């Protein structure tokens, strides 16, 4: 797949970083404002997809990117389950126990472990959507003409 014109490339370079930062904002503020891990993760994946669609596939080594993204996704999923299992060690012995101190309602650092769940689910969703896009592109590149 070839890249697009230089206008599209420069605009994508300017915007992609800001979209990525907005995704991180939506994830980190997930327990205060609407949004959260799922929405922010898809926004982060959207910025990566924008870069690849505008610059074409010769710019990156896609198979290497896919390997790294697979590892990140699996690690994030394991982290979610490990945090949930850590609830067995503190206080009431239940799965998904909110064992950290709650803090003031409305602060950025509050709500116990909920922001941690948001962050790891966001990483996992971003990696998943990006892997699906990458594997579609690699399938097209590898398929015989």
């Amino acid at each position: 797949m070839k890249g697009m014109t230089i206008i599209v490339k420069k605009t994508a370079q300017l915007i992609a970083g800001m979209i990525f930062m907005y995704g991180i904002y939506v994830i980190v503020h997930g327990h205060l404002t609407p949004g959260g891990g799922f929405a922010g993760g898809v926004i982060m994946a959207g910025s990566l997809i924008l870069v690849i669609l505008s610059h074409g596939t010769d710019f990156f080594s896609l198979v290497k990117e896919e390997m790294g993204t697979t590892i990140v996704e699996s690690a994030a999923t394991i982290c979610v389950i490990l945090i949930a299992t850590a609830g067995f060690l503190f206080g009431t012995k239940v799965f998904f126990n909110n064992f950290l101190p709650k803090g003031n309602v409305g602060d950025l650092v509050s709500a116990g472990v909920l922001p941690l769940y948001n962050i790891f689910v966001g990483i996992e969703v971003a990696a998943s959507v990006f892997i699906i896009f990458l594997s579609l592109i690699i399938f097209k590149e590898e398929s015989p003409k």
Partner: protein
Amino acid sequence: MEVAISIITGLMILGALFAIHAKDLLSAVIACGIVGYGLVICFLLLKAPDLAIVQIVVDTITLIMMVAVVLDSSREESFSRLDTFGKIAAATGLIIIVVLFYFFIIASSNLDVLGKSSLRMANAYIHGAAQKTGSANLVTGVVFDFRGYDTMGEAVVLVTAVLGVLTILRLKGKK
């Protein structure tokens, strides 16, 4: 509000019908976008901004992927005439639609007004969740604390979907 939602739902049905019958596949994909973005406006009117954000982002990315696929393959829809089996299938579908509408009319007379129902669990969530979870956003409190198993299931479903895609779309084996 119900009038606005009814109008938007009608537009969504028209878009879906056009997507089935369009000759150009690119315009069919764009017509599918009407369904998704109409659903976004419905979510905003029903005061569900979390769902609206997720729906608008996922719908945009799905539309981008579909447009890329259509531009890469053929844009022509291949129509075929109805044979005997197709007529039987169409008749069965019509009968099922009539039966479903009959039971829908019976059930809708027993439902509460849209947005006015007050369930026991919903009341407990609305009045006690902020103190119990410490989260100002009620949806995150419910999704990650009270309904943690559901969220973990969603994450695992996504991982399974990615595994399926990676298994199917692989021409050369990994060394």
